């Protein structure tokens, strides 16, 4: 396993290196079980940009995130994250929030949130001290000491997101973060995520099969089909205001219809 924590902890504890370049992929090909899951994919995400990637299941969305994160290597093409392309460095710059919340059942909510800080070498007390204010700020106060089994699906997902946020990496890769939630909790969490990202801006790649979610949370939405970017939409509809007003805005509806058409 090439993962090595030492270099990262230095990164985390010293002032952050300015990362002017975001995420780029050029001609990326990945063959899995004989199938070209990604087939010459090109992608550009500027620093602090927020890009949504939508597509049918099996379109290669999760594969793309694994590749960007440095957990996997492309068969052809180039990937660079914050200007580096070695897999180990990509791993250092990307935080991946998986589809399942992947909370550790033996750690309290607060200790799950501070996991990355402890992994980077901070003592548990210090990790807690840093995670606690975010609990307050992001509506999780009171659940700090609960084990994940005691949390609702929505709460677990929030903790998982906080954990990803606290990894303090310039790039956040979110893989269907709300896929397992019911519609109401999902809408609530989309709003919450949008607020959280306003507080802590990051370069975000959001993979989802929910077009509306992508349009609500991102500035740009890419449609992934047959292993490459099939269409691209700039979301020039105002995001603020009540959710219902946004999603019923004719411009938004038009965009959604176009995106859905591109997926099919």
């Amino acid at each position, binding site marked *: 396993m090439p*993962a090595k*924590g030492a270099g990262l902890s230095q990164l985390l504890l010293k002032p952050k290196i300015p990362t002017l370049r975001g995420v780029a992929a050029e001609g990326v090909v990945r063959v899995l079980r004989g199938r070209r899951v990604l087939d010459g994919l090109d992608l550009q995400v500027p620093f602090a940009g927020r890009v949504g990637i939508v597509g049918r299941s099996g379109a290669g969305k999760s594969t793309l995130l694994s590749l960007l994160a440095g957990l996997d290597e492309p068969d052809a093409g180039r990937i660079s994250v914050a200007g580096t392309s070695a897999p180990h460095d990509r791993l250092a710059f990307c935080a991946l929030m998986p589809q399942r919340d992947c909370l550790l059942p033996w750690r309290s909510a607060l200790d799950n949130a501070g996991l990355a800080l402890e992994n980077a070498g901070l003592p548990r007390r210090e990790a807690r001290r840093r995670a606690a204010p975010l609990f307050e700020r992001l509506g999780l106060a009171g659940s700090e000491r609960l*084990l994940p089994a005691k949390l609702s699906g929505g709460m677990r997902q929030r903790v998982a997101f906080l954990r990803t946020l606290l990894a303090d990496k310039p790039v956040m890769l979110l893989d269907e973060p709300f896929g397992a939630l019911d519609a109401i909790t999902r809408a609530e969490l989309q709003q919450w995520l949008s607020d959280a990202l306003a507080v802590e801006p990051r370069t975000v790649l959001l993979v989802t099969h929910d077009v509306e979610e992508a349009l609500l949370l991102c500035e740009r939405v890419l449609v992934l089909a047959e292993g490459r970017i099939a269409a691209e939409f700039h979301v020039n509809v105002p995001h603020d205001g009540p959710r219902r007003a946004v999603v019923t805005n004719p411009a938004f509806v038009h965009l959604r219809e176009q995106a859905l058409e591109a997926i099919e």
Partner: protein
Amino acid sequence: MRQGLGRWWPPLALLAGAVGVWEVVVRAAHVPDYLFPAPSSVVSSLHRDGSLLASATLVTLREIALGYLLAVAIALAIAVVLHFSEALRRALLPLLVLSQTVPTVLLAPILAILLGYGIAPKLVVVAVVCFFPIVVNAVDGLRSADPELVRMMRTLHGGRLAIFHRVELPGALPAIFSGARIAATYAAVGAVFGEWAGSSSGLGFVILQAQPALDTARIFAAVVILSALALALYALVTLAERVLVPWQPEAPHA
């Protein structure tokens, strides 16, 4: 324990019934005590030989406790080494299985020759009998960590050691405890084997001495104590699991 004492009633009632039948049958058939003592004779032996049995119990308890701790320590150490080295795992795991085909009964006299008549050979016998289920379960438990959790750790600054200590080891605890519970039931037998191969004290020694004297009630008394010791060790391990693995929904065992 969460369900109260309710679930203890069925086995206790069955046991009490069996002991009652045993008492009635032995008395009705006038079976002599040296052939098959009635429960009441065993109880009176427990009372009559109290001080003898008490000191023997202390000796055997020490062998069981220390031998078991030795087994746990060795088993966990081996499991961790095997977990980190694929090559060693492939080389050593089959040999560990092979080692279990050697009858411990035969190992005990050899150990007595090697290590003398003190406590050392007993500890080794207990450890040899107990370590295997712990090693096997621990190795399996460590290897069965959820690969998604491992990926998640890698993207969160998690190095190899962090993954081991924060994901693999806690995740393996239920499996390790399964092995430890099985091992707990072997420990008393191991101690008796050790004592039979050469000793001057302990419950196994008491049994050896009572046999030529046809003091069958005393043998039964020693066996009852040995069972109680094994049961106590099992209960202690189960309790430790409850404390150390609080995230388990509900331990499915008694």
